[in-house]
């Protein structure tokens, strides 16, 4: 009896038997994950408005449509674990618990922002909470994540681990090869989490890879790896939780490819001539948030009314963040050369 129950609790995902830990989560946790997904969605919708109104000094890469990947993956690791993020990093950052006010302030270049206005969208980091930063260089986080993994092994005996987000584009950078190989030979606790959103800027993965699955590259490094539905938050959660446990036992690293899609253009200047409206529409119909909300309603975790209430709540939080950001002061020009170097007090 016990055995069959255990079997029922496992799902086969791309050849791996993965424990369905998600279904064991408390309802509260499941709702919190939905809330995070809405936070990301509305944060990005607000950011888009800022872009349209010319309030973003530089550029932004919106995460809209990929929410299940960030939330599912980050919720499957511990609060003390590390993440590295990408140029499309708002979702990772929010999932890791970043303060929306300070994020919004950073986008507007304000002194109260996470980086005091020195980093902007592509460089939001919060080292204390384990967020080792977004990165403006495609693949820029891979080496850093691997190094953080080495700290986890040498200093924390794998009790801590690293979740390294990168995109399909980064999988063709040299640092991907060097990092994953190094993590493999040293057995580092790093989950290399590739968000395949089908385009590296305008170039489709079909033009950039001659393999069916990016996770097939696991063979080159002698590690585990699989491809999952990145728009299914429960599947993402279960897969990352499964391999996070393996990492803590010293069985890392792993290569996970999460298939997803970005709804918006690459950055603010993208006319999207490389893809059809029909294609975008088809993916929007597979909205990871709607899908998850429906699942929670169907499973009686929450009612339709509660979903609407949650959306409204998140909307208010975003409005507060916007007010905070707008009201915050710009940095003083005299601060321009501060923070270049660490100076001993």
């Amino acid at each position: 009896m016990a055995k069959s129950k255990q079997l029922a609790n496992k799902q086969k995902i791309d050849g791996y038997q993965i424990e369905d830990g998600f279904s064991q989560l408390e309802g509260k946790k499941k709702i919190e994950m939905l809330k995070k997904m809405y936070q990301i969605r509305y944060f990005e919708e607000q950011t888009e408005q800022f872009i349209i109104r010319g309030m973003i000094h530089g550029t932004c890469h919106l995460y809209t449509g990929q929410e299940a990947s960030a939330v599912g993956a980050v919720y499957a690791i511990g609060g003390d674990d590390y993440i590295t993020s990408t140029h499309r990093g708002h979702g990772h950052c929010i999932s890791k618990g970043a303060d929306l006010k300070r994020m919004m302030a950073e986008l507007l270049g304000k002194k109260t922002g996470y980086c005091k206005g020195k980093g902007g969208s592509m460089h939001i980091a919060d080292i204390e909470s384990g967020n080792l930063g977004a990165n403006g260089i495609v693949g820029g986080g891979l080496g850093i994540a691997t190094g953080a993994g080495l700290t986890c092994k040498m200093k924390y005996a794998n009790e801590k681990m690293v979740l390294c987000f990168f995109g399909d584009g980064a999988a063709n950078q040299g640092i991907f090869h060097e990092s994953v190989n190094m993590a493999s030979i040293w057995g580092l606790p790093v989950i290399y989490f590739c968000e395949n959103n089908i385009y590296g800027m305008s170039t489709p993965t079909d033009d950039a890879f001659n393999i069916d699955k990016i996770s097939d590259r696991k063979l080159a490094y002698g590690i585990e790896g699989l491809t999952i539905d990145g728009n299914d938050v429960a599947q993402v959660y279960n897969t990352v939780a499964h391999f996070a446990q393996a990492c803590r036992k010293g069985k890392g690293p792993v290569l996970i490819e999460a298939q997803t899609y970005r709804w918006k253009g690459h950055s603010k200047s993208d006319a999207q001539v490389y893809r059809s409206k029909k294609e975008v529409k088809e993916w929007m119909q597979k909205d990871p948030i709607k899908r998850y909300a429906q699942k929670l309603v169907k499973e009686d975790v929450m009612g339709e009314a509660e979903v609407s209430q949650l959306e409204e709540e998140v909307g208010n939080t975003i409005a507060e963040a916007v007010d905070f950001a707008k009201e915050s002061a710009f940095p003083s020009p005299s601060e321009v050369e501060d923070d270049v170097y660490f100076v001993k007090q």
Partner: protein
Amino acid sequence: MRKITYLEALREAMQQMMREDEDVFLLGEDIAEYGGAFGVTVGMLEEFGKERIRNTPISEAAIVGVGIGSAVTGMRPIAEIMFSDFLTIAMDQIANQAAKIRYQFGGKAKVPLVVRTPGGGGTGAASQHSQSLEGLVAHIPGLKVVMPSCPYDAKGLLISAVYDGNPVIFIEHKLLYKNKKYVQDVPEKAYKVPIGKADIKRKGKDITLVASSFMVQRSLSVAEMLYEEQGTDIEVVDLRTLRPLDISLILESVKKTGRLLCVEEAPIFGGFMGEVAAQVTEKAFDWLDAPPHRVAGRNCPVPYSLVLEQEMIPSEERIKKGVEDILTAV
């Protein structure tokens, strides 16, 4: 005290730090059994084991990247890049990651990473194993650049670099490593030589000669020779640190001598000494009795053939000629 070589001084610094501090570790190519391409880490595997004397695959970008990631999360890595020419293979990590992390995150991260690497020519290793790329890295805000010229400074500066809290590119010189001519009394206990402080290696009153690394040694022998031959008294200022630059010591010296001669191994065009000359011109123009002069590498890659290599890199004769020129300049 005992006399030891530059290489021995570097190794002793690392050994002492590693005995005291578990967070200090080394990573790099062939640094374990082999002891590093130039033998700096010979014997360290036996004492510290392969977890802390971490041999890597030939992956310069990941060596530096892993160094950065481990530094940001609390370790004190010392990465060895086998030849300074290979810094270019890791340049994204150095220029876009290590140098930028603190600033772009609003001063909330620390990157206590040291990248040790041998630079310079004179070994017949030709264009891809002989470059002097200090100017390239010194140009990037966020990096510190250190170039010791002698065993005493090598030990003290390396200990300072590891505990500086910033990414430090620590450029050693192949011709200094084992040369018995440059052995020096070095204290056995650990000590620090401050980063950002230049040093007067020879006091003099006629000319201020600014150099770093091996060019300090070459300049010192020219200075002694000229003093004996013709009584020209050259003050040799060893930069020790290129960034941050100790311009005040240089200005002080120039205000005394009225003449500035910069000697560097790198090609003269766009070289680091152009910065020194510019700052001295801006800040001490009225004290100068002659325009600042530069003796530097020729504007070509480092060639292979001995006769060509000797022509490319400043020789004693060229430094002497530089001294003559600046003394006869109006």
